[in-house]
C-alpha cells in the first residue's frame, strides 16, 4: 500500500470500487455541501470534489473536501492546473493532507472560455501529467517540485482522468500510458455511453498491460432527460453519446425519462462489469446525488466493503 486511502484499500482488496462526485456550491453555504454529502453516506468509497468545474467559480475543492471529511466521508480532492501555479498547488496539497485528505485527482481543467470568467488568464504553469509527477515525487521522494526536501511528505493516492472518446483515438491508449508512467495509481474515465468504443479502447489498454499497472474506474452518468442527452451529444467537447441513447430517451414520455436514464446507467454498469480491466465505477450524477444510492444498489454494488 502506498497510502492510507480508503479507495486504495478497497481496490487493493480486489473489490469493485465505487466513487461519486459532489460539486461545491456557488456561494459560501457549508450546509449545501453537507446536504449533498448525506446522499452518499455508505454508498461510495470516495467522493470526488470538483475544482471550479466548467471553469465556473465555486467554493474551493479543498474547503468542500474538508467539510465532507468532517462528516465522515472520504473526499477525493480534484485539482486543475488551470487556476494555480505549482507553488499554490503544492501548498494546497500539504494543507489538504494535514487535514486528512489522502486521495486526489489531477486534471488540466476545462478552458476558461466555457465558464463565467472568460476574461481570466489560464495559468497552466504545469500540465496534468506534470501534476501527477509532482504529487508522486512529493510522496515517494519527499521532494517539492523545485527539489527541496518536504518535512512529513503528503502521501496522496493519485488519480488521473482518461477520455477514451476524444480524438485522436489512436493516441488515447498512449496518453493513458503516459499518465501511468508519471505516477497515476488510479484512473477515472469520461462518462461512458458508447460502450463499444470503450471496449475497443480497453483492448488497447490490455494489449499494453496497462490495466495491471493502474486501477481503471469506468465513468457513468445517469441522464435526466432527452434534452440533456442531446446537449451532451452535441455541445460537450469530448463526449460520445450514441444516437440510440438519445432515441431511447425520446421514446418515453417526459415524466418517465429520469427513470429511463437511470435504467440505461445501470445497464451500462452491468455491461462494463464484464470488461476485463475495469476495477470500479465513477458515478457522475450531476446535481442528482440523491439517485446515486439507487444506482449503486440496483447495480448490485451495495453494501460497500469494509476494509
Amino acid at each position, binding site marked *: 500500500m502506498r497510502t492510507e486511502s480508503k479507495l486504495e484499500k478497497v481496490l487493493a482488496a480486489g473489490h469493485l470500487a465505487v466513487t461519486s462526485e459532489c460539486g461545491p456550491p456557488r456561494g459560501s453555504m457549508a450546509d449545501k455541501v453537507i446536504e449533498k454529502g448525506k446522499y452518499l453516506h455508505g454508498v461510495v468509497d470516495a467522493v470526488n470534489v470538483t475544482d471550479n468545474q466548467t471553469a465556473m467559480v465555486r467554493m474551493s475543492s479543498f474547503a468542500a473536501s474538508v467539510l465532507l471529511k468532517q462528516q465522515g466521508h472520504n473526499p477525493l480532492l480534484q485539482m486543475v492546473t488551470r487556476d494555480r501555479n505549482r507553488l499554490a498547488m503544492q501548498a494546497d496539497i500539504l494543507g489538504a493532507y494535514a487535514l486528512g485528505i489522502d486521495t486526489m485527482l489531477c486534471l488540466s481543467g476545462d478552458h476558461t472560455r466555457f465558464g463565467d470568467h472568460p476574461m481570466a488568464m489560464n495559468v497552466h504553469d504545469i*500540465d*496534468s*501529467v506534470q501534476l501527477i509527477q509532482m504529487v508522486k515525487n512529493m510522496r515517494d521522494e519527499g521532494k517539492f517540485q523545485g527539489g527541496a526536501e518536504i518535512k512529513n511528505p503528503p502521501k496522496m493516492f493519485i488519480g488521473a482522468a482518461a477520455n477514451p472518446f476524444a480524438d*485522436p483515438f489512436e493516441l488515447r491508449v*498512449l496518453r493513458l500510458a503516459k499518465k501511468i508512467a508519471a505516477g497515476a495509481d488510479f484512473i477515472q474515465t469520461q462518462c461512458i455511453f458508447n460502450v463499444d468504443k470503450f471496449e475497443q479502447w480497453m483492448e488497447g489498454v490490455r494489449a499494453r498491460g496497462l490495466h495491471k499497472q493502474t486501477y481503471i474506474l469506468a465513468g457513468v452518468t445517469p441522464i435526466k432527460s432527452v434534452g440533456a442527452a442531446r446537449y451532451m451529444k452535441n455541445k460537450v467537447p*469530448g463526449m460520445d453519446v450514441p444516437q440510440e441513447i438519445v432515441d431511447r430517451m425520446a421514446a418515453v414520455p417526459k415524466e418517465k425519462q429520469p427513470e429511463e436514464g437511470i435504467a440505461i446507467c445501470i445497464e451500462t454498469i452491468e455491461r462494463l462489469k464484464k470488461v476485463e480491466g475495469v476495477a470500479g465505477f465513477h458515478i457522475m450524477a450531476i446535481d442528482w446525488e440523491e439517485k446515486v444510492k439507487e444506482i449503486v444498489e440496483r447495480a448490485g454494488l451495495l453494501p460497500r466493503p469494509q476494509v
Partner: protein
Amino acid sequence: MEYIKPFKRILLVGCNECVTVCAAGGRKEVGLLASGLHMAVLKSGATIEIREHTLERQCDPEYVEELVPMIDGVEAVMSMACGCGVQEIARRFKNKPVFPALNTKFMGASERQGVWSERCQGCGDCLLGMTGGICPIARCAKQLMNGPCGGSTGGHCEIGEDTDCAWALIWERLKALGQIERYVEITPAKDWRPGGGSGPRKIIREDLAE
C-alpha cells in the same frame, strides 16, 4: 481618439518592418489612419494637424534619431509600430507624450493572404525539436506539454472549430516522421525562467555589444 483629443499637432509614425508586412502599421496604414483621424476630428468640430513619417525600424535607436528634426513641432506622437517601437520613441523623447496606435498581439505566421495566426510565445526554451515542429505552448489553448486534453474533437480544439488542436497536428507529424516514440517520453515541468518567469529578459552578445 481619446488619446489625441487634447492636441492640435501630432506626429504619426509608422514602421517599415513587421507591422508593414502584416499590413498594420506601415507607410500605407499611416496614410489611412491619418485621413481617418482627420475626418473624425473634423466631425467633432475641431481641427488637427497630423504629420506623417515612417521609419525603417522603430525598435532601433539610430532610426528613431531621424525624428529629431520633426519632434519639436508637435505636441504628441502616435506610433503605429509594435509595443517595442512605442517604447523606444518614449525612451528617446522624454518630454513628449507617446501613444500606441496598435494593440500588439502575437508572433505569428501568415496562413494565407490576410490571415495570420500565432506560432511562438518566445518561451526561451524551444520544444519544437520534440514536437514535430509544432509548438504546444503557443498553439494549445492549455499549453499542454504531454498530449491532447479530453476536449480534442476531429482535429479541433475544444475552444472552437476554427482552432486546430495542436496535439492532433503534432501526432500527425510524429506519425509521418516515424517518431511516435517521441510522444511517450514525458516532458517534465517547464522552467519558465527563460520564458519571462524571472522578470524582463535581456540578451547580451559580448561580441557585438559596445
